[in-house]
């Protein structure tokens, strides 16, 4: 043993090794994170979504005629799975669904081997929903195919953020042609609820501020740690839901993700008293705000049935926008990489 220094440590000026640049995405057609997209790429996707949505279905289904799209789902899903499938089919692609409950995944096949198997079967892109954060990165590295992240654990859900953006623009800027860094200047979007476990919250808080929006996160400390504001610029925390609503043009409600609580307990009555979106609360503090929810909604918990079905709710519109956005994202994935405009 050496003698212990008795003086307090002196900060020296040291240069530590740099953090290496990320090799992701390997494939320019991949959409792993909203951060893979430049604003120009987002703008292009929004434009293609509108164009494809309005195209004659008989012309549209020639765009990806007989191309092979695999949907690989390790978690249950209604909206995301169906809309990706309808989007791919709407462009003429053949789709196949592999789910963890009816495949060799049950027998212990790894994500890597499942991905390589799908590639060997001719899949040209894989749409992945997975319960582990980061799984799309693993799949992309293993297969080098365009991988579309349809939700990974508590991490990201990039197509949800894109369809949420399209929904917001449809109401706040219905005639907009192209987006820019100040398209949503002056707009405050409050995201309320279980932020910690929400991939929808992460993708939105990383995307919307890049268009100038202010994102206010709202929820109890258990679901919203202070360090959440460090995720990116333009993010702040307001614990008082009424105060957050008063500032907001858009309010996104989130479900409490019971499946990800990992033993945490929550007092639901207290939670509802503080954070449930009720008709009374909405009328008092945000009578003209858009009410959004990525679904599935739990009526009577994070919001009342009256609010879900009310005139300010655009929850089902979001679902409709999902198909258009996912057509654009699948088209981008399978576009010839030499002519692609979407890669950051």
């Amino acid at each position, binding site marked *: *043993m050496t003698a212990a220094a008795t003086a307090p440590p002196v900060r020296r000026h040291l240069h530590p090794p740099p953090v290496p640049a990320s090799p992701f995405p390997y494939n320019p057609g991949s959409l792993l994170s909203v951060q893979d997209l430049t604003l120009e790429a987002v703008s292009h996707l929004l434009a293609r979504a509108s164009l494809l949505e309005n195209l004659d279905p008989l012309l549209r289904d020639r765009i990806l005629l007989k191309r092979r799209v695999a949907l690989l789902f390790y978690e249950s899903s209604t909206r995301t799975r169906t809309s990706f499938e309808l989007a791919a089919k709407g462009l003429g692609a053949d789709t196949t669904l592999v789910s963890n409950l009816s495949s060799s995944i049950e027998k212990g096949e790894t994500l890597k081997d499942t991905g390589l198997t799908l590639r060997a079967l001719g899949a040209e892109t894989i749409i992945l929903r997975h319960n582990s*954060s980061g799984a799309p990165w693993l799949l992309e590295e293993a297969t080098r195919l365009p991988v579309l992240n349809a939700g990974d654990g508590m*991490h990201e859900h990039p197509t949800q953020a894109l369809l949420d953006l399209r929904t917001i623009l449809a109401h706040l800027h219905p005639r907009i042609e192209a987006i820019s860094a100040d398209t949503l200047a002056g707009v405050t979007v409050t995201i309320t609820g279980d932020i910690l476990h929400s991939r929808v919250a992460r993708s939105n808080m990383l995307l919307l501020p890049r268009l100038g929006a202010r994102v206010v996160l709202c929820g109890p400390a258990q679901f919203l740690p202070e360090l959440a504001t460090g995720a990116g610029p333009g993010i702040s925390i307001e614990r008082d839901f009424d105060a957050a609503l008063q500032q907001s043009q858009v309010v996104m409600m989130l479900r409490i993700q019971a499946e990800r609580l990992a033993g945490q307990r929550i007092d639901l009555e207290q939670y509802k008293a503080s954070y449930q979106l009720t008709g009374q609360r909405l009328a008092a503090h945000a009578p003209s705000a858009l009410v959004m929810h990525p679904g599935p909604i739990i009526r009577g918990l994070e919001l009342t049935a009256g609010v879900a079905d009310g005139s300010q709710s655009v929850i089902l519109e979001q679902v409709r926008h999902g198909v258009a956005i996912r057509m654009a994202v699948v088209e981008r994935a399978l576009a010839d990489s030499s002519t692609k405009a979407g890669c950051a």
Partner: protein
Amino acid sequence: MSALLIRNGHLIDPAAGVDGHRDILLKDGRVAEIAAAGKLKPTNGTESLDAAGLTVAPGLIDIHVHLREPGQGYKETIATGTAAAAAGGFTAVAAMPNTSPVNDSAEVTRWMLAPERGAHVRVYPIAAATRGSKGESINDFAALKSAGAVAVTDDGHPILKDSVMRETLTAAARVGLSVIQHAEDTRLTQGASMNAGPMAFKLGLRGMPPEAESSLVERDIRLVTELRDARSHLHVAHTSTAGAMAAVRQARRNGLRVTCEVAPHHFLLTEEHVGFYNTNAKMNPPLRSAADRDAMIEGILDGIVDAIATDHAPHATHEKEVEFENAPNGITGLETALGLCLLWLHKEWKLPLGRVLSLLSAQPAALLGLKGRGTLAVGSFADVVVFDPKAEWIYRAKETRSKAHNTPFDGWTMQGKVRWTISEGRVAYASA
């Protein structure tokens, strides 16, 4: 046994206070003679190595490795792990007991030390502190010591109960064994796979708070303080947080026999190096914040840190090619430690070469009481590393002697190339 003469090298032996050009004669596994360069001539039967322009130092000692035997030979064996050690300049390694079965008996300890294991360098088993490392009933430390164990620990299963830790410290002090603690309050780290902080939030991963480490180090130091037994020695394994380093610093100020080690990845990397879910940057304790990393560097430069230890933790490739939260903890380290220490601690951060080498040999030997190791004084074991201090090279994981490739340092620049590693007089490694 034949003799080996190392001529014209620059001998640095911090423990003996030598720093100059010397010839060194090894005979029958021991250091036989040291003289000014050019004075010793090879006689008949004496092999001779020309070390002109090279540094000659006591063989390196890593007091924290996982050799995976018995039971997990697909990850690493004592033979392959010690081959990697020799390639990295190490002549002695202390092997952790989280094997299968757990090394909690004299029988397993002796099995590890048997010649059939094919060790290339000296192995010192560290035995489990409690039966099966379950943290309930302590093992027979006297029997373990006489079988060859040099310390006790439950490593990845830290001893949380105060009463058991107190009993462990007391019993180990009585027989003169060190108690090594992997400080992690596992009640605070359930389901977590990286450091708690903004990066974990961003990546959607559950985090291990730094307090899980520092609070247990503080608890252990309190128990040592209460014991009032001058023989008791607490060693903090792979220190990674500023809080734990501060606690060790304070304990030393209070005159306690509390030591600590730091792994190269904890003084070089931060949680940012996890990048997009790089499982080769996943270990326990995890890569921490920049402030924690800086505190490790400070601790090393200030002399609070007693040893650089790698926590060499080999895993099969297929085990790491999975979702981040499902990947096992640990990275390899034996072949990269010297190259990283020389480049960063010495060249970049100006820690004198003698102090770097001391942290890798003399101090860890003293810490675990490894007699005749960590110095090249006449009569010591003939454990020598000869390296070219000027050589810069790139580490390639695929060229490793280990069975495992799980390192975040693949492709990194290293300083100082090992030419020969000599273990008890035999050449255990020679570079091409």
